């Protein structure tokens, strides 16, 4: 794995005896001691994830807000300064290039956090539409490390280490004034459904913070538990639920496409688009659904595929998200999942499998 990229915490993961894997060109911890314990720690206590592989863009200048609001489908202008906004980034056909979070520090200063595997693609997409806006776009991905501290004890733990941390609202941000080496901030965001923070800062600051969190007894958590946690609360993953063959309207993300705002990339395509697919939440009493398994209706016709599946740690049963043909799905009475040639009846869930405790 020597040619893989490493985060600034790589050595610390090895010291903690993490199982390391190739994750989109990065050597990342998939789990430390025990995946189940990591999930439980986040649901009941606190866990910390190294997600430094993710990308950070920094947009500054007079038109920073106009630019980002034109680039993404959600409405960043409608958000107050100091807020974080989840949004798809679409191409001119309305197809999803990536899903990302926009951190609106002010109208002239905006951070964007993007998926690691999409950093270059996203940056090119943003560069290609920037000409008419008076602002600067920088890729700061190699300057930033990123931790996600997640779980009900996150606030008190973070506060005990960084005194200036305030009890900010969900999807809000706070600049850290006492961290001087580089612009650093916290956001009350995450990918687990629990209360928690994502902390952006220099490699040195983040390595230091990681050490203090581990010393305080916070469970180090890998990408394996992160995937179970996000799937339990039905958060989509780019490459599984989302990709550039579909639009946000095909993936349960209609709420992130603001047709009433001014023009944005993909708007005209999405205006006339009727969704072909629907994302459904399936659970099984027996058997474990996995990505790629076929979903069939009662007539035995394939109506779609599982995009993500696992055994839920909380529910102790198989859970999955599936992309199904919208029309065939609406005509279906019962769904089965084809697992190695055997059909397992699936229960259709209207709500996420697990309700996280985020504020």
């Amino acid at each position, binding site marked *: 794995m020597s040619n893989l990229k490493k985060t600034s915490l790589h050595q610390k993961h090895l010291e903690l005896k993490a199982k390391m894997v190739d994750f989109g060109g990065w050597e990342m911890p*998939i*789990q430390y001691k*025990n*995946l*189940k314990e990591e999930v439980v720690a986040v649901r009941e206590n606190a866990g910390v994830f190294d997600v430094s592989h993710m990308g950070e863009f920094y947009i500054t200048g007079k038109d920073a807000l106009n630019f980002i609001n034109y680039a993404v489908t959600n409405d960043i202008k409608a958000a107050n300064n100091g807020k974080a906004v989840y949004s798809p980034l679409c191409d001119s056909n309305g197809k999803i290039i990536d899903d990302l979070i926009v951190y609106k520090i002010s109208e002239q200063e905006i951070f964007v956090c993007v998926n690691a595997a999409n950093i270059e693609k996203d940056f090119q997409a943003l560069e290609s539409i920037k000409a008419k806006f008076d602002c600067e776009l920088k890729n700061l991905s190699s300057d930033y490390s990123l931790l996600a501290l997640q779980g009900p004890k996150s606030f008190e733990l973070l506060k005990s280490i960084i005194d200036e941390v305030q009890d900010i609202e969900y999807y809000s941000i706070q600049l850290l004034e006492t961290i001087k080496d580089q612009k650093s901030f916290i956001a009350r965001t995450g990918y687990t459904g629990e209360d928690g923070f994502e902390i952006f800062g220099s490699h040195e600051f983040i390595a230091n913070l990681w050490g203090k969190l581990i010393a305080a007894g916070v469970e180090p958590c890998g990408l*394996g538990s992160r*995937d*179970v946690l996000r799937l339990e609360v039905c958060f989509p993953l780019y490459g599984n639920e989302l990709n550039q063959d579909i639009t946000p309207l095909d993936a349960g993300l209609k709420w992130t496409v603001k047709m009433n705002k001014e023009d944005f990339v993909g708007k005209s395509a999405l205006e006339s688009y009727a969704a072909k697919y629907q994302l459904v939440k399936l659970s099984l009493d027996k*058997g*474990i659904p*996995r990505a790629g398994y076929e979903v069939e209706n009662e007539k035995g016709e394939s109506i779609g595929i599982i995009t993500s599946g*696992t*055994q839920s*740690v909380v529910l*102790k049963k*198989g859970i999955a998200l599936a992309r199904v043909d919208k029309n065939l799905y609406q005509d279906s009475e019962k769904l089965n999942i084809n697992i*190695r040639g055997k059909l397992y009846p699936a229960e259709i869930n209207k709500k996420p499998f697990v309700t996280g405790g985020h504020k």
Partner: protein
Amino acid sequence: MSKVMDGYLYTEEHEWLLVEGNSATIGITDFAQSSLGDIVFVELPEEGEELEAGNSFGVVESIKSVSDLYTPISGKVLEKNSTVEETPENLNEDPYGGWLVKIELADKDQLNSLMDAQAYTEFCESL
């Protein structure tokens, strides 16, 4: 260091076999359960099914992975361990107690290619 039982035979896919007379019991080794992590699902063949050496006869799933079970020997399934299908987590606790299937040996020569405890210990250390 994972546990290896004397008197058992082993495959490179980390299954163990205990031969008694004309039948063999198959399970997964301590090394296998440890690399899989929390085992949450086991699927086994039905009694009476004919298995063929080298083919998959079932699966073991952890939270994040699916692993096929391979039989190194041919023969009819005499018995499957239904308890392990109901409580798969027992495989993590006691991989040598939580056997999977008993097979009637069709060809005893197929046992010759398997490793003994010492060879398997060395094999695991080489990984």
